[in-house]
Each structure stands twice: as structure tokens, then as C-alpha cells.
């Protein structure tokens, strides 16, 4: 009994954190934003440490519907640290009314909790409920912005596309259940590869993947991303862009691993989605003026690269996606940290607003440079290593033409990423703009992010070995 509690400790802790924050939301009296911030910060720091400590845990819980292995624990650790980083950059939470701050932290926590359950779920009902828990929290977070004209519109779009995607996913799951007669992924894994050529299995699998494509903003479920990025508060968008993307990648790996890799139909669908997603994301990103919209389209393109790693369906492919997920998290947090610091009243930041950043705040300019170059995939950042590993995995499986296509896309994407760097380094500061004050904790966070980005780029071997073991755990018959 006690053993099981220890296995479930990270989730229990985040549940406890949600309860504490819920207590703050119903507390009466004047809103106290500093108290809320410090509570959330301390609790999420403890949570991140607990997830780090539980990396070695292995076992099954709840009638084998819940599996702990290196894969799930590694992703839980990423999620825990992602939440901590997002809360770190929420110290100046101007985009949300003060009395709603506890709710903001509460829903961030429940969403993270849902994603943690999601990466461990190996049964269809568990998977569905966990996915809905994380999505519902996000639906509420997006329209929470203060004084914006677009937040409710972005919220309603996000909600309807999300609800549609999850209904489609359920419909697909019902076919998988009909074909395999079970809801356990372990049993599906043994029966589905033989049946994958039957229409029922293919339709079921493709429809099920739709729900996850929505989470990752893969084409054709991408069009919520730019609107939500523009309409949501900056910190909420930071969460959607980083933590929620990682959970999507994790569960996509789990589900695609189910098919065993011999379905040509499914492969063709994934290849087409990867190609269209990359091209569309990169081409539309070129003409964006708003930095958050640019990041939204770049995230659509990145979902395409991730699909490339997943459709190589090999241990190396999955391991490279795990590595890429972490690099993507750190790089995006770096970009959003600069964005949040730049935006004084929680407003959106245009690319022109970065003009002269190297004079106004040299440290921020360096972080932005590394973050943006990392997303573009230039060495020596983590983004380069991640892309490199994914492309190697795809070439090993004989998708050379697809990799060449992706390389062309990477080159296109350089254009708009360099536009951001050019604004920050070459353009003169606007008239009357003042230096940006950076507090000491923020300065430390900056240094930490810079070090991690470079470390991921230069010394990938330790983490990549762990990722390979985690990928083996997914591929092993459960």
C-alpha cells in the first residue's frame, strides 16, 4: 500500500498543490498577488524536485491502467520543471486581473496534473479522462485575460476545435475497441499490428490520433494556435506552447508505437501531415508581425519535424523526439521569458518592439538570440542537436527525401527567425525607450536558461542515453 503511494507521489503532490491553490481562490478579502505567486512558486519548486526524485520509479497501478516507466517519469520530470519555469516568469502577471491570480495558478496545476496522468496512462479510458482534464483547464485559462478584446473569441475557438478533436478521438477509440475488444494498450499492442490493414483499425487509429494532433497543433488541427497565442495572456500562452506540447508529443509516441510500424496507410497519412504542416507553418510565419503569432506558426512547423521523428518508428526516432521535446521546452521558455519581460502591461509584443534590445537589456538580447537560433536549429544550441538526431533517425529508416524536404523548410524558417534577431541587434532603439530593469531572480533564470540551452547543444550524450532507454520502455510489450 505504502509502496503504491510512493509510486503515485508526484501526482498526489500536484493534487495537493491544486487543493492549496483552490483554498486561495475561495479565501476572502483583498487579492494578494505576491502571496499567491510565492505560494505557487514554492509549491511548484517542490513538485519539480519530487518529479526529479521519482525518475527511477517503475511499476503498475490501478489494475494496470497506469504504468510507471522511465518514459513516463522522464516526461513527468519535464512537465514538473516546465510548470515551475512558467510560474517563474509569472512574477509580473499583468495580463490577468489580480483577483483571478489564484485561479490562474490553480488551472495551470490541474492541467499539469492531467498531463502527468496522460503520460502514464496505458488504458483508453484513463488516457481520455487525463487528456480532458488537461484540456479543460486550458479552455478556461485562455479567456481569462484582462482588458483584451480578443480573449473570449480566442477562448471560444480553442474550446470548439478542442471539443471537436476530442469527440473525433473518442469516435476513433470506439473503433479500436470494436476491433481489439479491449481498452488496455498492452493488449491492443498485441492484436492491432495484425489487424492494422483492416479499414476499421486504420480509421480508428487515424481518428484517435486527431485528438492528439489538436494538442500538438499539427495540420489540419492547427488553426486554433495563432489565435490562442495572440488572444491569451502571455504566461498562459507560454504554458500552452511548452508544457502542453510536450504532453502531446509523449502520448503521440505511445499511440503510434502501438501500430508496430507496418501500416503503409498510417505512414502515408503521417508523412503528408508532416510535409503540409512544416511548409504551411514556415511560409505563413514569414509575414507575421506579432511575435506570439510568429511563435504559433513556428510551433506548427515544429510539430511537422516531430512527426518526422515519430514516423521513423524506431528506438532512435522516439529517443530523438524525447530529446527534442526537452530542447523545445527550454528554447520556448527562453523566448517567452524575454517576451514577458518586454511587455510592460501584459500586452502583446510586436517584432519591431525588439528594436535595440541589445542596448536596452543586453542579457535579454543574448537569451533571445540563443532561443530563436535554437528554434531555427543553428548550432551550438539544443535545437540543432534535437533536429540533427531526428533527421539521422529518419535517414536510417530511408526517408532521405523527406529529410531533404525538412532541411529546405529549416532554411525557409531561418528567414523569419533572423528577422527577430536583426530587430534586436541591428535596429536602433525607438525614441524615448528606456533600459529594461531585470531583477536578480530573473537574471539568474536567464543565466540558467543560457547554460541549459548550450549544454543541450554541446553535450547531448548523457540525456540521449536516458532517452534511448525510455524509448525502449515504450517499445517493449507492456
Amino acid at each position, binding site marked *: 500500500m505504502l509502496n503504491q503511494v510512493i509510486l503515485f507521489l508526484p501526482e498526489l503532490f500536484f493534487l495537493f498543490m491544486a487543493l492549496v491553490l483552490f483554498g486561495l481562490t475561495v479565501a476572502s478579502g483583498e487579492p494578494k498577488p505576491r502571496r499567491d505567486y510565492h505560494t505557487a512558486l514554492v509549491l511548484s519548486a517542490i513538485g519539480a524536485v519530487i518529479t526529479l526524485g521519482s525518475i527511477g520509479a517503475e511499476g503498475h497501478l490501478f489494475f494496470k491502467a497506469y504504468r510507471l516507466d522511465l518514459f513516463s517519469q522522464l516526461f513527468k520530470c519535464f512537465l514538473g520543471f516546465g510548470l515551475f519555469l512558467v510560474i517563474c516568469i509569472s512574477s509580473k502577471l499583468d495580463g490577468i486581473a489580480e483577483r483571478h491570480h489564484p485561479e490562474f495558478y490553480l488551472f495551470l496545476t490541474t492541467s499539469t496534473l492531467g498531463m502527468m496522468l496522460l503520460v502514464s496512462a496505458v488504458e483508453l479510458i484513463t488516457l481520455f479522462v487525463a487528456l480532458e482534464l488537461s484540456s*479543460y483547464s486550458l479552455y478556461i485559462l485562455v479567456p481569462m485575460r484582462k482588458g483584451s478584446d*480578443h480573449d*473570449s*473569441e480566442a477562448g*471560444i475557438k480553442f474550446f*470548439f476545435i478542442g471539443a471537436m478533436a476530442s469527440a473525433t478521438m473518442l469516435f476513433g477509440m*470506439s473503433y479500436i*475497441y*470494436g476491433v481489439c*475488444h479491449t481498452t488496455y494498450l498492452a493488449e491492443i499492442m498485441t492484436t492491432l499490428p495484425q489487424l492494422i490493414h483492416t479499414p476499421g483499425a486504420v480509421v480508428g487509429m487515424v481518428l484517435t490520433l486527431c485528438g492528439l494532433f489538436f494538442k500538438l497543433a499539427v495540420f489540419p488541427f492547427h488553426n486554433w494556435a495563432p489565435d490562442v497565442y495572440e488572444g491569451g495572456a502571455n504566461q498562459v500562452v507560454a504554458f500552452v506552447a511548452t508544457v502542453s506540447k510536450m504532453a502531446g508529443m509523449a502520448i503521440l509516441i505511445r499511440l503510434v508505437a502501438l501500430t508496430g510500424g507496418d501500416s503503409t496507410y498510417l505512414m502515408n497519412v503521417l508523412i503528408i501531415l508532416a510535409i503540409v504542416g512544416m511548409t504551411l507553418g514556415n511560409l505563413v510565419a514569414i509575414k507575421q508581425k506579432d511575435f506570439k503569432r510568429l511563435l504559433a506558426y513556428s510551433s506548427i512547423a515544429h510539430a511537422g519535424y516531430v512527426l518526422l521523428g515519430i514516423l521513423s518508428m524506431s528506438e532512435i526516432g522516439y529517443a530523438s523526439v524525447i530529446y527534442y521535446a526537452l530542447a523545445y521546452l527550454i528554447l520556448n521558455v527562453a523566448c517567452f521569458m524575454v517576451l514577458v519581460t518586454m511587455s510592460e502591461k501584459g500586452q502583446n509584443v510586436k517584432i519591431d518592439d525588439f528594436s535595440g534590445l541589445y542596448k536596452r537589456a543586453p542579457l535579454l538580447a543574448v537569451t533571445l538570440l540563443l532561443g530563436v537560433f535554437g528554434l531555427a536549429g543553428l548550432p551550438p544550441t539544443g535545437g540543432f542537436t534535437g533536429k540533427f538526431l531526428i533527421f539521422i533517425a529518419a535517414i536510417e529508416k530511408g526517408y532521405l527525401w523527406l529529410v531533404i524536404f525538412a532541411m529546405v523548410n529549416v532554411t525557409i524558417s531561418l528567414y523569419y527567425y533572423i528577422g527577430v534577431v536583426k530587430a534586436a541587434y541591428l535596429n536602433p532603439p525607438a525614441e524615448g525607450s528606456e533600459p529594461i530593469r531585470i531583477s536578480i531572480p530573473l537574471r539568474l533564470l536567464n543565466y540558467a536558461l543560457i547554460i541549459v540551452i548550450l549544454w543541450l547543444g554541446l553535450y547531448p550524450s548523457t540525456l540521449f542515453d536516458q532517452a534511448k532507454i525510455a524509448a525502449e520502455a515504450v517499445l517493449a510489450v507492456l
Partner: protein
Amino acid sequence: MNELQVYLFVALILFCLGLTGVLQRRSLIAMLISVELMLNAASLNFMAFNRFLTPEPAVGQIVTLFIIGTAAAEAAIGLSIILAVFRRYQSIDIERARELKG
């Protein structure tokens, strides 16, 4: 056509009706109802497969219970966001909320 196929066919029609509804309807409430139709189609599928195919008698029904529960939560969240839209635009017509470019 055997009995299972009839159920699957009805569910498919429900699903397509729901999908068309979400994409075509302009009223937010009607869109919400269409999403519920899609969820019900999935429930019907689970029940039909459960009744005709699977050895274990209960699993499909449990899934359906979960779908009903989450659908209720989804409706609550959807209605609250619709209320926010209504306060902002004084209308629940989706055409009014069209300022973002998508």
C-alpha cells in the same frame, strides 16, 4: 445488414450530423449541441461493440458512463465561455466574434 452494422451506421450518421453542425451552424449553442451529438455517436459505438462483440460485458458501458460525465463538464465549461462571449459582443452569433485572423 446485421444488427451491429445498423447500430454502427446510425452512430456514423450521428457523428457526421454533429460534425456538419459544428462546421456549419453560426449559433454557439447549436455548435455545443452538435459537439454533444458527436460524443453520443461515440457512446453508441461503444455500447454496440460491447453488446455484440466483446467477451467482457461491462467495459463499453463504463466508457459510456465516463463519456457522459466528461460531456457534462465540457458543456459547463463551454457555456461559461459562451457567456463571456455574450457579455463582450451581446450576441452568441459566431460571425460577430471574427476579429482574429485564424
